[in-house]
């Protein structure tokens, strides 16, 4: 059997993991990344410390990047996208935007997600008031070393509110899913703020807290027990300003009274949208999307990582909100699925 060739699209955690796994198993990998560097959202968006390892993204994901970049079996195309993709399992041809044509037995889409654009919810004040920021921006404040400061005047915030479910669980804007990671990320950010600014108070406004699985202890519990973060059961209706501070309007649903509370900084825990390019990606690769706009998964019980088209596989947040750890696991899982699929014809012939 000749050496298999696999196209991996996207170099976030899932793509880096899939590419490495395939190369380690002896395949030749073509890794296509539309940005000018590898790493995906954790690197491009400047995440700070990751959940749950607390390692800096640039170290943890950076390590994955270095491993892939140093691998002879992986051919990397940066600032490139796949423009055309045809053929079938064992015999695909991909045309890249840089003019190259790649042959591949299979492809793994690790095209990830897009952060929800908070501008789409004007009542929450993003883009109107400078001190309304997103979780991604707070990550950047940490990772850049600048620290958490109010963008309007650089002051240290006394009181910070984190709003959960921004761009998630909201039919008004067609987002009827839970973004899965924002509760944990928010608890993490809240603890980091409290650690960096011990005099500050941090409030998390929630509908439910979904720090699933083992994240319960080190995030939901620890943020309260060790860091005195306060959780208030209210989905915020509106962020306004009285000209001095931000004003949060909501209903404290446990007290059953409306609230209008002043804050220095409001952090929106932005959800995970389908990749904005998904419609295009779907048409290039001839695959289906689900009703939310994510890549539709084939039934998982036979083989995980399939799409609606044989030979085209998928891993990570391309299929829906996903954690970094699970994206990495799915990258490896898709690699196994690819290898298994390529062996299938051989097996069938033998039988």
């Amino acid at each position, binding site marked *: 059997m000749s050496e298999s060739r696999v196209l991996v699209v996207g170099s976030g955690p899932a793509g880096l993991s899939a590419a490495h796994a395939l190369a380690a198993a002896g395949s030749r990998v073509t890794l296509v990344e539309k940005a000018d560097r590898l790493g995906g959202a954790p690197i491009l968006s400047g995440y700070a410390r990751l959940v749950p390892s607390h390692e800096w993204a640039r170290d943890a994901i950076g390590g994955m990047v270095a491993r892939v970049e140093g691998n002879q079996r992986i051919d990397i195309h940066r600032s490139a996208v796949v423009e055309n993709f045809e053929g079938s399992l064992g015999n695909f041809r991909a045309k890249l935007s840089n003019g190259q044509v790649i042959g591949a037995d299979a492809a793994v889409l690790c095209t990830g997600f897009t952060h929800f*654009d908070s*501008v*789409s919810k*004007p*009542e929450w004040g993003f*883009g*109107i008031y400078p001190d309304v920021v997103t979780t991604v921006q707070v990550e950047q404040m940490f990772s850049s070393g600048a620290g958490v400061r109010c963008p309007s005047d650089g002051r240290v915030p006394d009181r910070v509110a984190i709003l959960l479910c921004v761009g998630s669980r909201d039919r008004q*804007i*067609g*987002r009827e899913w839970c973004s899965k990671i924002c509760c944990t990320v928010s608890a993490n950010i809240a603890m980091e703020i409290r650690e960096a600014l011990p005099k500050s108070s941090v409030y998390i406004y929630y509908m439910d807290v979904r720090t699933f699985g083992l994240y319960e202890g080190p995030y939901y519990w620890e943020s309260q027990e060790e860091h005195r973060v306060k959780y208030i059961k209210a989905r915020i209706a*509106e962020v*306004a*300003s*009285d*000209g001095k501070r931000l*004003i949060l309007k909501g209903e404290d649903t446990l007290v059953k009274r409306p609230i209008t509370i002043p804050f220095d900084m409001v952090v929106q825990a932005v959800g995970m*949208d*389908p990749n*904005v390019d*998904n*419609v295009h990606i779907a048409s290039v690769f001839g695959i289906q999307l689900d009703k*939310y*706009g994510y890549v539709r998964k084939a039934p998982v019980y036979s083989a995980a990582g399939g799409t609606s088209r044989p030979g085209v596989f998928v891993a990570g947040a391309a299929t829906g909100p996903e954690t970094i750890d699970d994206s990495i696991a799915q990258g490896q899982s898709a690699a196994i699925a690819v290898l298994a699929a390529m062996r299938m014809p051989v097996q069938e012939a033998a039988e």
Partner: protein
Amino acid sequence: MTHKEPTGDYNGFGPGWKATGLTPAEARRATDWVEAKIDRRALLVNKDRVEDIRERMWELEKDGEIVVHRIGDQHEPVVARTLYGWEKKIPTNSLWHHKSCGQCGNIPGYPSSILWLMNKFGIRYLDETDQTSCTAWNYHGSGIGNVVSLAAIFLRNFHQAYVSAQAQGLPVGTYYPLVHCGTSFGNYKEMRIYLMHSAELREQVRKILGKLGRLVDGKLLIPEEIVHYSEWLHVMRHRIREHQVVDCGNLRATIHPACHVYKMVPEDVIYDDTVMDGNRVAVSTGLMQTLGAQVIDYSTWYDCCGFGFRHIIGEREFTRSFAIDRKIKVAVDEARSDVMIGHDTGCITTLDKNQWIGRAVDKVYELPVMADCQFAALACGAHPYKLAQLHWHASPFETLLEKLGIDWQQAKAEFESYLKDVADGRFETLYDPKRAITSGPGFVRQQGDQAA
């Protein structure tokens, strides 16, 4: 621009539809461009998930269920963009005034300012007596009424608008209804959605309208767009500016957007990237900015005025408390507002009339409140008493007039002396009263109408 008539299979898919004849690649590029430029809120996923009721309307028309009253060339439409970047045609000429009971009843400067501005632009319109309130205030206040009655009243009034031109010997559909009241606007838009969704409701209403002789070819008549006067003002704002004679540059204005204008059926409301970055409803704000005033945001801009529908009649304790604490006080203390501008009947009444009683609890605020059209008329030199009828406003508009350099004392004296003429039966009018009746008792066919 050439306009190809819709043909073949696509006939009926909206009056503006035409085949583009683009290649798939060109179409893709064009779509990309539109998606990049479209309103920021019109995100990919969402766009397909919010229903544009007009699409259902065109389908029903194609199926022969309804007739759509179209906005045609005689209405000189201007296209505006709504919340999700959809297009909405706003007619600017040949308009049928669908008045507001609250405006005509206690803010008469409201309709007179609209008519005055239209006269200034030489716009053809009809102001007739064959119309009723939408009755939605009563419904929302008391619960007396129901969806069927509201829908029937909607279609009766709009049918009358459609046929009204016949009285002048003009073809049906010449005049297009312009809704003055915000509650009527919101209610009619809701009714249109219910009607488009429910065959049962259509059947119930069809029976009633048949009895009244209010069907077109046995079908319900549905307007292509339901248009609020503030939308007309919005698309006319640059033309209004050409007539501006009063400098508004040193004015700090706050806007009270009306709930029933922009919270009911929000997808149909005009947003404009040049007006507060598209983060606030564009009407009124766009006009005030165009007239040179500074529009100041305040923390309760989204709040209701406190009208309450039932409360204003039965329980003003809530209305006055809310109006003062949540709107007037904030606009004065926070925004240092010189004037609050609204675009709906109940809000103007509530915010204007309920200020005085604040003295009872030492909350003394004096914030002039008026409608966008009244302000526009003043800016274009309208008489503050004779035309804008400001004497019906309880809030102290005199200080505002001084700030605008208008001598209100002289104007008041002029008006008082004019009242003597009125008492003697000599009064000025914006409109030929003979045109006010278009059928039934009192109708007189006008000379020359046949030829018009």
